[in-house]
């Protein structure tokens, strides 16, 4: 196996870095560059609404990365849930909160350094986790043909055999129901509050 990642003499395993690169490699690097750029813009931009818009682009680029990995269902989830739902939700929350979008945040320098240190530490941990798996690091992991396409996923999702996920599929709906009820309970005005408001108005 590979030697552990020592910081001073960073030893990389012999990865099959293929130059000249194929079309998929170029696509990966382009998409990854777009993703990194928009992700940096998300945290660097002063206006919080603009950073939400950059977040959309970052999520879309992530979805394209998933597509490049042949993970269709996750790409679909990324676009539908994160781009279509979560970011919209973030925007709603910004707009619901009065005055939040108006003032630029004054970021203190020590915080910037702390954020940098944290993210670099995170990257190191990720690299250390990924490198000992040579198949993963070299991108040579391959699932069976069309394993993660939409249709095979559906067959496994509904399957009641030994490789089926029908129980998790049904449990998802219960989880969603719980989310719905909790959200309603938290966000809705209670009867007392409504009556109080009416009393105030009168």
């Amino acid at each position, binding site marked *: 196996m590979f030697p552990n990642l020592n910081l001073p003499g960073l030893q990389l395993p012999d990865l099959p870095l293929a130059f000249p690169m194929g079309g998929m490699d170029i*696509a990966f690097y382009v998409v990854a560059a777009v993703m990194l750029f928009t992700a940096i813009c998300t945290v660097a931009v002063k206006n919080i609404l603009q950073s939400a818009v950059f977040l959309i682009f970052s999520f879309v680029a992530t979805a*394209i990365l998933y*597509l490049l990995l042949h993970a269709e*269902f996750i790409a*679909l*989830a990324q676009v*539908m*849930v994160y781009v*279509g*739902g*979560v970011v*919209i*939700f973030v925007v*709603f*929350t910004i*707009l*619901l*909160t*009065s005055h939040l*979008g*108006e003032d630029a945040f004054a970021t203190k320098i020590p915080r910037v350094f702390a954020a940098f240190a944290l993210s670099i530490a995170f990257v190191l941990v990720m690299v250390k986790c990924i490198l000992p798996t040579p198949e993963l690091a070299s991108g040579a992991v391959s699932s069976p043909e069309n394993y993660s396409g*939409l*249709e095979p*996923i*559906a*067959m496994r*999702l*509904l*399957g*009641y*055999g030994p490789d089926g996920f*029908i129980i998790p*599929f*049904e449990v*998802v*709906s*219960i989880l*969603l*129901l719980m*989310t*719905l*009820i909790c*959200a*309603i309970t938290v*966000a*809705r005005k209670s009867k007392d509050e409504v009556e109080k408001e009416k009393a105030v108005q009168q």
Partner: protein
Amino acid sequence: MSEYIILSIFLFLGAFIAAAATVVGLLLGYRTKNTKNKMAPYECGMETIGNARIQFKVGYYLFALLFLVFDIEALFLFPVMMNFREIMAGHTALSPVIVIADLAIFMAILVSGLAYAWKKGILKWE
């Protein structure tokens, strides 16, 4: 994979046309100085009053929450619907009756959530 190449061509063309429209406008357009009047937000010729950013009603938040839940539901139903016809025709290993029952349970649980929201008066706009 070929459908994704078509998709990426569309993505590229969409971005290209949007960028080209802006750039061509910049290149060909007649430029004047940016005065304060020119840069003012246009509001049907009226003078703008106050800030454009107002606080939204909390009601929108609940609708967004409802949307998110049913968005995820649609996400899970989408792959199933992609080969629903094949399952119904019996070309797969799954029995059509069991699949229908599964989907019915899935939907029933979520629709009961919608019914709860309805009963609590969330859907009524105040």
